[in-house]
């Protein structure tokens, strides 16, 4: 198995509050993994450490052959831009930009010119059932539409890893399932590895397997079935 992203014995504290206490996790290339656990257990902190947003107090984080936790801020930021995509629960679209411009953002930040970036962005609207909404601003989109735009933005630069933190947390369950179906289909088509943080079993059921975070550590569940 080729490992795409890995945490080894990672600890992290917010001041006096320990959030991770020796968390280890290895995700295979192309795998869709659900990170579950009760609220406050350390799921988001783990995601932020894996994605190079937070630097662990101890332990290692690797993406392929790159050791992330020892990189400086500029290198981590470049790595995030080149290899990672993100989808969060709320408020991620830039309200001043159109939906298409929002989707194009990672490409523009990656140095691609506006024309080709917007063309690539528009191709995603058809694919995610958003045709005709390219010029809307985030205030003119429903929750499910906005989240599909955010998904397109997370995947447009064909990242190695998509980090999704409660991506359906603000949606009703049917809309959430639509978004999850699209997320899984598009990630599989591109071979993108997905780290999906969720406390909802129905959302986790879209992943290939789950791990459970409890008190800042990871319980790998017993293997069930084939």
């Amino acid at each position, binding site marked *: 198995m080729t490992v795409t992203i890995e945490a080894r014995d990672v600890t992290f504290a917010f001041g006096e509050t320990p959030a991770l206490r020796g968390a280890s996790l290895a995700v295979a290339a192309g795998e869709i993994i659900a990170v579950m656990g*009760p609220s406050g257990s350390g799921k988001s902190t783990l995601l932020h450490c894996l994605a190079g947003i937070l630097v662990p107090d101890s332990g290692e984080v690797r993406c392929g052959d790159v050791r992330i936790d020892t990189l400086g801020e500029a290198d981590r930021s470049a790595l995030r831009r080149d290899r990672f995509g993100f989808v969060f629960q709320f408020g991620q679209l830039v309200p001043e930009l159109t939906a298409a411009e929002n989707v194009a953002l990672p490409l523009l930040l990656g140095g691609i010119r506006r024309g080709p970036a917007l063309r690539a962005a528009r191709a995603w609207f058809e694919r995610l059932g958003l045709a005709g909404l390219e010029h809307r601003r985030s205030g003119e989109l429903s929750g499910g539409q906005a989240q599909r735009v955010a998904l397109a933005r997370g995947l447009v630069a064909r990242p190695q890893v998509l980090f999704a933190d409660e991506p359906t947390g603000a949606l009703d369950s049917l809309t959430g399932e639509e978004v999850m179906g699209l997320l899984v289909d598009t990630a599989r088509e591109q071979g993108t590895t997905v780290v999906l943080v969720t406390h909802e*079993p*129905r959302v986790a*059921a*879209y992943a290939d397997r789950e791990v*459970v975070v409890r008190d800042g550590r990871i*319980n790998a569940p*017993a*293997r*069930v079935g084939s």
Partner: protein
Amino acid sequence: MTVPLTLLGLLEREPSHGYDLKRDYDTFFGRGKPLPYGQVYSTLSRLARDGKVVVSDVEPGAGPDRKRYVITDRGATEVEHWLTEPVEPEPHLQTVLFAKVVLALMLDRPAEAYLDTQRAAHLHRMRELTEIKRSGGLVDVMLADHGLYHLEADLRWIEATGARLDALRKEVRR
């Protein structure tokens, strides 16, 4: 058992032969677990004995497939009653899980590990149902959803119980 009532319900649409009933049962209700012919005919003869169906005509030839069954007023009333009345809200599985957890605590065995294993089994099944849902038609979606919501309810109970194990241990151990 829902088989007799389901067959009765199918007959309420139109008089049918046993093989039509089996085919429709397998298509809409069997979900990978086809109804054996033997059970179709034994069920139909019990329904006939109880006056819920009658045999309308027997075509020439031999074998049970020659008979056409028609629902009676009594049968139709039974279907109506079954559809109208709520099902006893019986949390079967929860009873088993509850018994396992309490016994594990009484016997000083790893209740938490049992719950973890159960959670993994539930999630495994939920993944299978999600897959069925994503590759099937609307009927599959509805059936899978029913399973998914029930499993999710169990999982909530598992989480809540897991969080209370220490207190529960004190209460059940003497």
